[in-house]
């Protein structure tokens, strides 16, 4: 369990966007309501050059959230000590307001598979993931946030609901949660439950950040709807409705617009951030 006094400053309860280099100048000239930026940790693990220079400039004007996509916290092997060391180095010089990772695995043996792969919710998984979160928080000296995945299939062996599984991880490790409402909508549609029931069972008090993003629509072998987490367009209306639903429970919170593929021009992305700002403006202070 992490010592709570190590907890760093939190992200502002305002809109943020996933940072893309093509928006560097726009963000400084016309940020609109955007108060913070999220970066993918692994993209800044080179030795220097423009990525580092841009981050050094941006951290003067924006709070920064470091979002890892490569730690493989759900992996069945031990965490890669080299990668943990690189994360520690990044977090030490950048001093971000938040560090988050995913409830997923992406590394197997020496291979990195560059996707967030799913986990069965069992006692064995719970023990392993809790140990990994403990290790991350100990090495980084800070509380981390864990993000709920987008699921396309179920494991026959699962014995926990995802919400109970997350709540138990919070209880065991003291970690916080990153609630991705797009992922909730995707998983609920794909696995046939209502997203509202998921939020009603979710440990809202542990939320340190919320994600909204876009998805694509497909069908499975039997013609059932299959939503794909693409981060390549505006968030869908039901996802914005879920954001309102979540914010009603949490009060004002940091809300991130994720748009990683077919990245649009700045006015289009900023319009999504302004929509998040409106959602936040209509939430009674917590």
């Amino acid at each position, binding site marked *: 369990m992490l010592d709570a006094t190590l907890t760093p400053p939190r992200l502002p309860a305002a809109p943020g966007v996933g940072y893309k280099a093509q928006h560097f100048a726009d963000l400084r000239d016309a940020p609109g309501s955007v108060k913070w930026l999220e970066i993918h940790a*692994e*993209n800044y*693990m*080179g*030795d*220097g*050059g*423009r*990525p*580092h*220079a841009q981050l050094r400039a941006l951290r003067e004007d924006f709070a920064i959230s470091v979002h890892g*996509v*490569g*730690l*493989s916290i759900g*992996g*069945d092997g031990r965490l*890669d000590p080299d*990668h943990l060391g*690189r994360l520690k180095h990044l977090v030490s010089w950048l001093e971000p307001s938040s560090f988050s990772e995913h409830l997923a*695995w*992406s*590394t*197997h043996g*020496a*291979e*990195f*598979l*560059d*996707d967030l*792969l*799913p986990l*069965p919710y*069992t006692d064995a998984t719970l023990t392993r993931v809790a140990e990994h979160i403990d290790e991350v928080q100990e090495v980084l000296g800070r509380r981390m946030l864990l993000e709920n995945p987008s699921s*396309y*299939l*179920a*494991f*026959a*062996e699962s014995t926990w609901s995802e919400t109970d599984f997350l709540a138990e991880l919070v209880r065991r490790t003291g970690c916080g949660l990153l609630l991705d409402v797009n992922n909730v909508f995707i998983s609920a549609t*794909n*696995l*046939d*439950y209502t997203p509202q029931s998921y939020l009603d069972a979710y440990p809202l008090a542990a939320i340190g950040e919320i994600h909204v993003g876009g998805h694509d629509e*497909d*069908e*499975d*072998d*039997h013609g*059932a709807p*299959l939503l*794909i987490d693409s981060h390549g367009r505006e968030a869908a209306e039901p996802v914005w409705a879920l954001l309102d639903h979540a914010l009603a429970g949490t009060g004002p919170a940091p809300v991130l617009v994720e748009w990683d593929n077919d990245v649009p021009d700045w006015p289009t992305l900023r319009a999504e951030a302004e929509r998040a700002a409106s959602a936040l403006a209509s939430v009674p202070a917590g």
Partner: protein
Amino acid sequence: MTTTQAEFRAALLDPARAVPDGLTDPKGQPTSRRFAVYRNNVTVALIDALRTGFPVLCKLLGDQNFDQLARLFARAHPPTSPLMMHYGEDLPAFLDSFEPLAHIAYLPDVARLELALRRAYHAADRTALDPARLGALDPDVLMQTRLHLSPTVQLVHSRWPIHDIWRYNTQADAPKPRGIAQPVLVTRAAFDPEPHALTLAQAAWLQAIAENAPLEKAVDAATAHDAEFDLGPLLTLLIQHNALTDISTPKD
């Protein structure tokens, strides 16, 4: 029933394998379309990373051919690190022995150049050498001095005109490639890597400098290729592009 990550991974990169047991739709039925989402995500992510990392190779081959090559390469050589900025280090060697493209013999060296540009982009920042320190040296001392190259500096040897090929495929109005051997130096004056064509003598000099030889030994290596070798233009280029960081004189 448990579905191990080893089983999941094996089926992920081999579409001929059956979907692992224990993965279902919400009604508990087996599903291949759902597993295919993960298969597709991984393959598309790796192909996209290679497209981003090797734009000239992609242009030379065309999108369809490049994607076929990338798919074969990705299945045989998945990334070995979460640092996707380095993905594809094995592609030149893969191309060296890739029979279907053996008739385009310069492809592996073009891939090496694109990797060198990427390495330069992410290399560490260093303060450049004040050239006055070189100018202040006595000529005898100068010839025994070692030059320290910035980590941004990359040297790609080739017997193909890879600089011309790179330029022809990235710049409008670039002349057609000539039939000459073209080693390439990559520098990064600020943030943008820039390739420069070298003569064989210049490449031999730079190789010796990179191996920490004193200037005199490096000049010997160059004159073995070209008795008329003139150090001036390359040294000027290195200084102008912040490619030197320090010097060691014999008395250091």
